[in-house]
């Protein structure tokens, strides 16, 4: 997840996070309406996709194969005559799952590692830093290949690989916030009141790094969706006939000369979602008053 790592690297953390008076949603709506629109559409499609999809996601009808966009199939059909719009709505749900798995694995593992490393320092910090340094930027596809070779190709297995690759991003940001907070007055006060180091980390330090973690989650969520598409495209992720952006693009590649529409519509949809999350990450960085170095 080097790209997101790079975004994280650009952020100089201002800790503890001082909130603006304005509410977050109001700020986002003013700062980056496009991000809010795209992400809202994505989440809506992910949750309500199966309810609002005009046709079946998996029902095939070869007499309707490879239709361009038209009145009853707004985005056309694929090589097996399945409705592309319905399958894109289904893919949004898969993408949301991918994002959730990656952010949960990366966030929980990474934040705890970073919190402990930055908060306790010393040998713990050294070990955690070295391990994350090694993981940092390690080719995600290789991790996915190893995991899929051990288990089977599936969305969860592919996303576990991406989640592991995301751990350093979260760990790094959590560590740097924890280090900055280590000797602040309120932490020392808690220490003076007799709170143990672990308790301080959980009750004092952790709440102050929620903002930075949300920002990383937004960038890594975008990366998760990109990797879901890439790994499913390679056949390591979601398996047919289930829809996913990657598996649809895999189908699309076989029919590029008869039905280029399929590649175009699916690619635009997945790019729009990723763009929305990246813009959201940028806007959240501003909201939490993080400035680019």
């Amino acid at each position, binding site marked *: 997840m080097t*790209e997101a790592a790079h975004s994280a690297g650009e952020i100089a953390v201002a800790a503890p996070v001082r909130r603006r008076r304005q509410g977050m949603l109001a700020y986002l709506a003013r700062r980056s309406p496009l991000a809010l629109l795209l992400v809202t559409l994505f989440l809506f499609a992910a949750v309500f996709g199966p309810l609002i999809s005009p046709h079946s996601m998996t029902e095939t009808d070869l007499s309707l194969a490879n239709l361009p966009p038209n009145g009853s199939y707004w985005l056309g059909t694929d090589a097996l005559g399945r409705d592309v719009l319905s399958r894109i709505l289904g893919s949004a749900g898969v993408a949301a799952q991918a994002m959730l798995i990656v952010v949960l694995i990366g966030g929980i593992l990474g934040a705890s590692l970073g919190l402990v490393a930055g908060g306790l320092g010393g040998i713990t910090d050294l070990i955690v830093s070295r391990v994350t340094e090694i993981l940092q*930027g390690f080719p995600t596809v290789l991790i996915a290949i190893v995991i899929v*070779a051990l288990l089977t190709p599936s969305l969860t297995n592919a996303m576990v690989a991406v989640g592991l690759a995301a751990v350093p991003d979260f760990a790094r940001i959590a560590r740097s916030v924890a280090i900055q907070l280590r000797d602040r007055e309120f932490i020392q006060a808690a220490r003076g009141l007799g709170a143990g180091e672990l308790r301080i980390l959980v009750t004092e330090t952790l709440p102050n790094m929620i903002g930075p973690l949300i920002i990383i989650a937004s960038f890594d969520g975008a990366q998760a969706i990109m990797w879901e598409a890439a790994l499913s*495209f390679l*056949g390591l992720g979601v398996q047919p006939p289930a829809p996913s952006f990657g598996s649809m*693009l895999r189908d699309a590649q076989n029919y*590029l000369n008869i039905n280029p529409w399929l*590649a175009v519509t699916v690619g635009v949809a997945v*790019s729009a979602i*990723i763009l929305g999350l990246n813009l959201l990450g940028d806007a959240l960085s501003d909201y939490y008053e993080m400035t680019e170095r």
Partner: protein
Amino acid sequence: MAGYIFGRVIGGFITLLCVSALAFFATALAPGNPAAVLLGNMATPERVEAVNRLMGLDQPLPVRYGIWLREVLAGNLGNSNLSFRPVLGLIGAALPATLELAALSLLVAVVVSIPLGLLMAHKQASWWMRPLSGFVTLGISVPGFWVGLLLIVIFSVWLHILPSGGFVPANRNLGQNLRSLVLPTLTLAIYLTPSLVRFVRVAAASVLREDYVDTARAKGAGIGRIMFRHVAPNTLISTITYIGLQLGLLISGAIIVEVIFAIPGIGRLGMSAVLNRDYPVIQGVVLVAATGYVVVNLLVDLAYSLIDPRVRVR
């Protein structure tokens, strides 16, 4: 200096050990008994056990890892379960295509990104900066392999000027070879460029705020001299490290691009091995790719400390 290099080399060595363990256990723990596979329909429990003993599969895992590591160091990566050819030979045959693709793509990405990033850092207040940086964000958000599919639609399906696949090895016909690599290289370069541009822009912008740039300006240096004499060299140093970190992305990207354009490189070898459960080949590909990643990053670290003495005292 010697201490720094020693520390880095030891670190790289430990990483390589971890990577080799990863490659070994990924296949040793995989379902399916190699002895049973080897015996096929001649397998009986007694025979499987005999072959297990013969192949050393009855030994505990750490012992097997040790034996495997010794074989690897001697250059023996085993044979493919499918073609029965030596894995090392398969990888050796696939590596040139991958290295050529990766090198060309990286070259294109660097040649485009560095000037563009410097320009964007210099012209931060211009009216065309907003659309341009919007374009960079868009570039980061577009899946690289999708760009590859679009390039095929445009240049192969519509314009019929470039092939959508069919790699020609460089030693057979260099012209045809380069022609067959135009779209793959473009795809991988477009994938790498936006984040590199963004990095160079941020790095150069921070160099532009340094005191020595003000000093140069006060001494009457023109913008050309400031950018090329002061900003570019100081930006390049951190950019080299960044490219080292991007190497993982380059490897991942090369694997995907090889699959799209049917380039017989190491990525395609690995992918077909995964889908066919050809474990020795998976093991070899993961080992070689990961070793390449670790070694190049180590070299980047060392080069970095040679170029910029500030690193060592950090």
